[in-house]
């Protein structure tokens, strides 16, 4: 709220206060007046008496200067009895002299006379009580005619009570006056007598206002505005005294006032002061009403003559403007921001098609309505903003020509301000630029293709002067380098180049300076505003002779990621120097640095624990940590291993709620890629996990793919080495066992052959026979061994073709086969019917089942009835077949040993120790696993094995 409106508000509050005080006073006066006239007219005795006696005022009736009647109030106030009053002169109620020193009798006579002439008299009067005490009274004299006789009615009010009220009034008036004197606005109260009936037509109201309005209050400021020294000089004046022009014109211009219910805001009036000088006032007012009548008007006005004089001066030169602007085809306008008055001139007809006279009378709203709907609000807003900020500028908008077409106008405006810096006027020129704009748009459209190219390109273009200073920077430059245009323009470009590269790059730059059109490509590190050092690849072309470019045009591209990838590839290639575990560690580290993921690891399936994955290398926050094992089934890895790349950019924990490791890792995103051998055999997987959502999925995918390929070759290499080592060990074991186990029977044979000589010498026939038996057995054993070895060497090659069959069928065949050796075997064996079909070498798998069932029979518990179960279970998405017995069982520590070649737990058993080694061989050749479980001795054993059906085709 500005100062003047604040003052205005305070003023209005004061007025309201005063008004209520005034009302109290005038109401009471009017009341008694009304009562008297009514009782006089009605002559209703009872009513007359009632009113007469109950009046708060003293009432006396005089006939020719003698009191003929009075009410009881007279006794009350003056202390005389009624008999002492009636038939006496009123002189007894007054002191000799009144306040002004004149004799009471003379004054009373004058008032009486005047009243008798028909003019009611109101005056203050000093009264005297019977006790001699002087009282302040207020007297009203009215002439009443009763039965053609003129009588005087005297109404006397004791002012001692009123005095208090008036004192209060005085006080608040003083307050108001102090306030009024303080304000720079001219404040006045116009009393309207008689009041104006608000139901009258506006014209009539305006007319009455001008005729009946009298200034009854004024402050110093107001007086000065009219060229007067003292407010008193202006009191009693009416509007007519100041108005310029004839009355009819004045009335018409005043019609706004009743229309606005006498509440005016910055209404401009043109008035003359006491010297006849013209002043322009901006008026605010508020009407005081009573019974739907205007009884007065508080006004506050400001002298805005100076601003108007400026306007006038403009007006004087308007003609000149008109001519010039017409010549240049522009419309010139000048709008007073305070009064709203606007001057419009110039080539109005030419630009908008309107007659100047027609256009000049357009209101601001009319003009606004001509704006193109799409431009309207934007233009109004921009103009408002310009006015508020007081900043000159240019607007471009479409405006409707009288012929209905829109023309494009360029509106150049200036804002004029007063000495306080408040904007007071806006001056502008509107020019038709339709043709120019259409032409420009054509150019823009043709340029747009090029511009779109530049702005949408991730490459940055910039032009350097021959001195290496920035001359031009493309919009995309900021996206790459982060600097604003203003920061770079005119700065030395090479200051941003890394010191390691600077000399080289400057030399390259210098190298093309002397050759027109020369071109050079370079990679270098450049500091960016927000992302530190980045690697850029730039092409510079010498276009110094080009008339528009006149510099070295440089096209820069951020190749940091590419360079990092190049480095990654390089390190992958160089990584071949380290092998095995060391290689995996360095690879995981390298990948974690490039990806910047919290965890990166390489995992493979464990051989001995199905469904469990173990890491080969794992990094946490770019550091190698101890390897871990985890369950495949609950983790996202289940969808990766042996399958395809998986990306969970966020919420991976919610997707795999049972994976406890993800919780520990605080995983949010996950990317996993399977690692397969060159033959497509699943080897494991490479995983990266982060505690943040994944942003750049494509980069991560690319890096993971790149690394996984290298890993797979290394894992494959390692697994080949391992396989070779295992084969080697097996071969070694084979030659060892062969040398040992084949030697044993030879030693036996030769040993007992030697004994035979002794037996014969000693004639010990019995021992001779037993020794011969030993020799024979040893020879048999040797034969068995040789046969088994032959068989074992044969299974290295799967000669039989694979076919589809169920393990159930095979098991039944085996039981059938073994019935010959173990009668009614089928009574002791349960076979799960319709086990899943496998695709494998049927003959070999039958050997597996046969060996396992034979073992169950061989190592049965002789004390209880034999029981064999053959069946399958589904475990970790794999079918596991089993042969379960209730035999002698196996001690835990020997569970692995039993699959070794020539291993026997019982030296007295008649096996060669090749059976389980053979079974293991067959299962492994089918891509499966075999293992045994037993609760211990006499607890029975279970042999489990799996078959990878797909391997059968190989």
């Amino acid at each position, binding site marked *: 709220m500005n100062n003047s409106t604040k003052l205005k508000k305070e003023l209005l509050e004061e007025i309201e206060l005063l008004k209520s005080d005034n009302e109290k006073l005038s109401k009471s006066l009017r009341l008694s007046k009304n009562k008297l006239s009514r009782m006089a007219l009605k002559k209703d005795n009872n009513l007359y008496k009632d009113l007469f006696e109950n009046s708060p005022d003293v009432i006396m009736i005089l006939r020719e200067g003698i009191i003929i009647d009075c009410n009881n109030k007279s006794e009350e106030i003056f202390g005389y009895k009624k008999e002492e009053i009636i038939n006496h002169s009123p002189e007894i109620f007054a002191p000799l002299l009144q306040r002004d020193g004149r004799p009471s009798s003379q004054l009373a006579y004058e008032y009486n006379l005047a009243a008798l002439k028909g003019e009611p008299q109101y005056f203050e009067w000093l009264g005297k009580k019977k006790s001699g005490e002087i009282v302040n009274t207020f007297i009203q004299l009215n002439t009443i005619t009763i039965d053609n006789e003129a009588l005087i009615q005297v109404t006397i009010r004791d002012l001692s009570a009123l005095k208090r009220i008036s004192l209060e009034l005085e006080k608040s008036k003083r307050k108001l006056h102090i306030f009024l004197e303080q304000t720079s606005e001219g404040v006045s109260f116009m009393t309207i007598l008689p009041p104006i009936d608000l139901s009258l037509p506006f014209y009539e109201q305006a007319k009455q206002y001008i005729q009946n309005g009298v200034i009854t209050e004024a402050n110093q400021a107001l007086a000065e505005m009219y060229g007067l020294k003292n407010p008193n000089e202006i009191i009693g004046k009416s509007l007519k005294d100041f108005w310029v022009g004839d009355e009819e014109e004045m009335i018409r211009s005043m019609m706004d006032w009743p229309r606005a219910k006498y509440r005016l805001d910055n209404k401009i009036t043109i008035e003359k002061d006491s010297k006849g000088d013209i002043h322009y006032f901006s008026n605010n007012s508020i009407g005081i009403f009573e019974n739907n009548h205007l009884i007065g008007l508080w006004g506050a006005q400001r002298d805005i003559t100076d601003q108007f004089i400026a306007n006038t001066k403009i007006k004087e030169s308007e003609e000149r403007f008109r001519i010039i602007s017409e010549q240049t085809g522009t419309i010139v306008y000048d709008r007073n921001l305070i009064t709203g008055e606007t001057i419009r001139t110039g080539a109005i007809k030419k630009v908008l098609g309107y007659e100047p006279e027609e256009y000049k009378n357009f209101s601001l709203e009319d003009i606004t309505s001509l704006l193109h709907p799409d431009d309207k609000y934007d233009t109004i807003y921009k103009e408002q903003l310009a006015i508020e900020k007081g900043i000159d500028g240019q607007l471009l908008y479409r405006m409707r020509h009288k012929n209905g077409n829109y023309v494009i106008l360029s509106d150049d405006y200036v804002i004029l301000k007063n000495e306080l810096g408040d904007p007071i006027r806006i001056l502008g020129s509107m020019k038709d630029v339709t043709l120019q704009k259409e032409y420009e748009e054509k150019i823009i459209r043709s340029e747009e293709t090029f511009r779109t190219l530049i702005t949408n390109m991730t490459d940055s273009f910039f032009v350097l002067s021959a001195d290496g200073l920035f001359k031009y920077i493309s919009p995309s430059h900021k996206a790459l380098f982060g600097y604003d245009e203003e920061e770079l323009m005119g700065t030395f470009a090479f200051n941003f180049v890394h010191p390691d590269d600077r000399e080289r790059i400057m030399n390259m730059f210098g190298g093309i300076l002397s050759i027109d059109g020369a071109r050079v490509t370079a990679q270098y590190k450049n500091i960016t505003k927000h992302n530190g050092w980045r690697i850029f690849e730039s092409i510079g072309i010498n276009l110094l002779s080009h008339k528009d470019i006149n510099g070295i045009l440089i096209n820069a591209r951020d190749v940091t990621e590419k360079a990092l990838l190049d480095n990654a590839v390089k390190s992958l290639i160089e990584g071949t120097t380290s092998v095995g575990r060391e290689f995996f560690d360095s690879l995981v580290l390298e990948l974690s640095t490039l990806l910047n993921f919290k965890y990166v690891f390489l995992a493979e399936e464990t051989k001995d624990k199905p469904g469990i994955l173990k890491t080969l290398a794992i990094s946490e926050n770019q550091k190698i940590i101890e390897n871990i094992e985890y369950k495949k089934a609950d983790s996202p890895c289940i969808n990766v291993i042996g399958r395809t790349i998986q990306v969970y950019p966020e919420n991976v924990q919610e997707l795999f709620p049972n994976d406890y490791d993800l919780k520990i890792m605080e995983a949010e995103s996950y990317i996993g890629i399977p690692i397969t051998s060159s033959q497509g055999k699943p080897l494991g997987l490479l995983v990266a996990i982060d505690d943040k959502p994944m942003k750049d999925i494509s980069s991560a995918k690319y890096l993971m793919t790149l690394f996984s390929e290298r890993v797979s070759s290394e894992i494959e290499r390692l697994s080949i080495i391992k396989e070779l080592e295992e084969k080697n060990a097996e071969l070694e074991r084979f030659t*060892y*066992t062969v040398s040992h186990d084949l*030697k*044993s029977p030879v*030693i036996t044979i030769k*040993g*007992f052959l030697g004994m035979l000589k002794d037996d014969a010498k000693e004639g010990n026939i019995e021992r001779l026979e037993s020794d011969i038996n030993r020799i024979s057995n040893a020879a048999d054993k040797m034969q068995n061994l040789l046969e088994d070895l032959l068989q074992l060497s044969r299974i290295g090659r799967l000669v039989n073709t694979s076919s589809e069959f169920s393990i159930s069928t095979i098991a039944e065949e085996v039981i059938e086969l073994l019935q010959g050796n173990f009668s009614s075997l089928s009574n002791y064996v349960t076979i799960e019917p319709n086990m899943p079909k496998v695709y494998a070498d049927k003959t070999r798998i039958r050997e597996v089942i046969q060996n396992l069932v034979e073992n169950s029979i061989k190592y049965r518990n002789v004390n209880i009835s034999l029981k064999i179960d053959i069946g399958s279970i589904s475990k970790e998405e794999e079918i596991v077949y089993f042969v379960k017995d209730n035999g002698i069982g196996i001690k835990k520590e020997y569970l692995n040993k039993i699959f070794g070649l020539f291993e026997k737990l019982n*030296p007295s058993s008649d096996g060669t120790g090749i059976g389980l080694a053979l079974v293991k061989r067959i299962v492994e050749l089918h891509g499966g696993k075999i293992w045994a479980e037993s609760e211990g001795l006499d607890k029975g054993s279970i042999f489990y094995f799996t078959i990878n059906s797909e391997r059968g085709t190989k």
Partner: protein
Amino acid sequence: MTIEAPTILLVEDNEDHAELVKRGLEKNKIANKLIHVNDGEKAIDYLLSNPAPHLVLLDLRLPKIDGIAVLKKIKTMPELKKIPVVVLTSSESPKDIESSYSNYVNSYLVKPIDFSKFHKLLDDLGYYWLLCNKNPNS
């Protein structure tokens, strides 16, 4: 002065070989007392629950607990480690010889295929280990 008959623990899974060793030692009248067990587990059980033998003849390929493991057990147990252990095996594998000596074997002998050589070896063995060699206990 009566010489207490020396005790030999023979750990051998091959029944025939055990018989050959028994007869060979009987013939040269050295081994009066020969205890035979046919696997590694039984060997350890015997050693832990009987007076220490004068000599252990140990085969390497044994069921349950193999010879090297038995040797290791003997040589790491304070109450057993002084017992002379002679490996008697058909294996000539350098790996077996190496690991036997690494586990403090007292002697490593390979069973000859030739009968007379086998007997000569047993003669020498008995003579050397039970007569010439001075044991800490004796």
